[in-house]
């Protein structure tokens, strides 16, 4: 068994990892649909999204690995970061790691996160880090499409049958609990803003709500009340689901130390 790598506690690195891991873990969840979607066309569409997200996470993890080397830690490659960290060093938002649920759950989570990512990429195009700005320019095109795809399905399901509406409402109620985490600032955001690396997450809240309002309105789904619950994945404290996800994801790297793939 390979022991875990250690990540230096540098706020800019954490900022990058929060984004990279959110893409990675959402991609991991979406990949689970391949072979199991409601229609064959959707198997392909969800896989495309998963591939985009995995591609984004690869670019971001590579960048984060270089940052790690620059801020007092070791330099790492994308796979060391993706497969050899302890759970507490994964910084994705909890929303991304929740089990894929039914199709309504997947669609609405995609809507929330693709909208959030779209707003994030738009702002990251102006990052002081040229590499990050370039990643954002490319990822933005992908997130726009993901958002459109999710929004169209959200409307179909919200304004489809009684059952699809009931399932959408249930999924929305659960997912909404995890959204405050997407918009609350801490020291990491302060450092990133000061360095010009990227926006404080709180800046995305208003435009995100406006876009969600529009889609949910068209889907005839009520925006749930603001939750008091707080998830904390981005600080490394995850839901119980994360351990299982990582056990599966990391298994080969851990079981075959020194392997070449």
């Amino acid at each position, binding site marked *: 068994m390979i022991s875990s790598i250690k990540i230096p506690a540098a706020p800019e690195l954490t900022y990058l990892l929060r984004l990279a891991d959110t893409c990675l873990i959402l991609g991991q969840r979406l990949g689970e649909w391949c072979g199991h979607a409601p229609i064959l066309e959707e198997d392909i569409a969800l896989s495309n999204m998963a591939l985009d997200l995995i591609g984004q996470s690869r670019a971001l993890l590579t960048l984060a690995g270089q940052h790690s080397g620059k801020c007092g830690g070791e330099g790492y490659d994308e796979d060391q970061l993706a497969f050899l960290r302890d759970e507490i060093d994964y910084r994705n938002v909890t929303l991304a790691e929740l089990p894929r649920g039914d199709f309504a759950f997947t669609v609405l989570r995609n809507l929330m996160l693709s909208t959030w990512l779209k707003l994030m990429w738009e702002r990251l195009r102006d990052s002081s880090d040229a590499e990050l700005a370039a990643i954002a320019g*490319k990822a933005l*095109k992908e997130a726009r499409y993901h958002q*459109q795809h999710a929004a169209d399905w959200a409307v179909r399901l919200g304004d489809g049958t009684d059952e699809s509406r009931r399932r959408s409402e249930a999924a929305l109620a659960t997912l909404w609990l995890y959204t405050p985490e997407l918009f609350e600032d801490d020291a990491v955001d302060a450092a990133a803003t000061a360095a010009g690396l990227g926006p404080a997450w709180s800046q995305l809240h208003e435009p995100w709500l406006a876009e969600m309002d529009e889609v949910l309105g068209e889907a005839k789904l009520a925006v749930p009340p603001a939750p008091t619950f707080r998830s904390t994945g981005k600080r490394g404290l995850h839901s119980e689901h994360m351990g299982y996800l990582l056990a599966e994801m990391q298994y080969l790297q851990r079981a075959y130390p020194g392997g070449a793939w």
Partner: protein
Amino acid sequence: MWEVFVRTKAGLDHKHCGSLHAADPKMAVQMARDVYTRRQEGSSVWVVRSDQIVASDPNDKDMYFDPAEDKVYRHPTFYKLPDSVDHM
């Protein structure tokens, strides 16, 4: 307005070759024959009402098609194999 698709010979795809005006489907398919297959170009024609075609928005071009750019692993050339098995 109708869009015309012609198959040049059995086995091949119908390819879009142009448009024409006609009042009804029957007239359209006859016109397609007369307008687009005068030089033995066809073995079959399809006509579709132009307003029935749903097209991607030109403004969406980037988000529709650019994401395929970096998926290099979909191409056989991405995998470098030893010469003796490279024709695989």
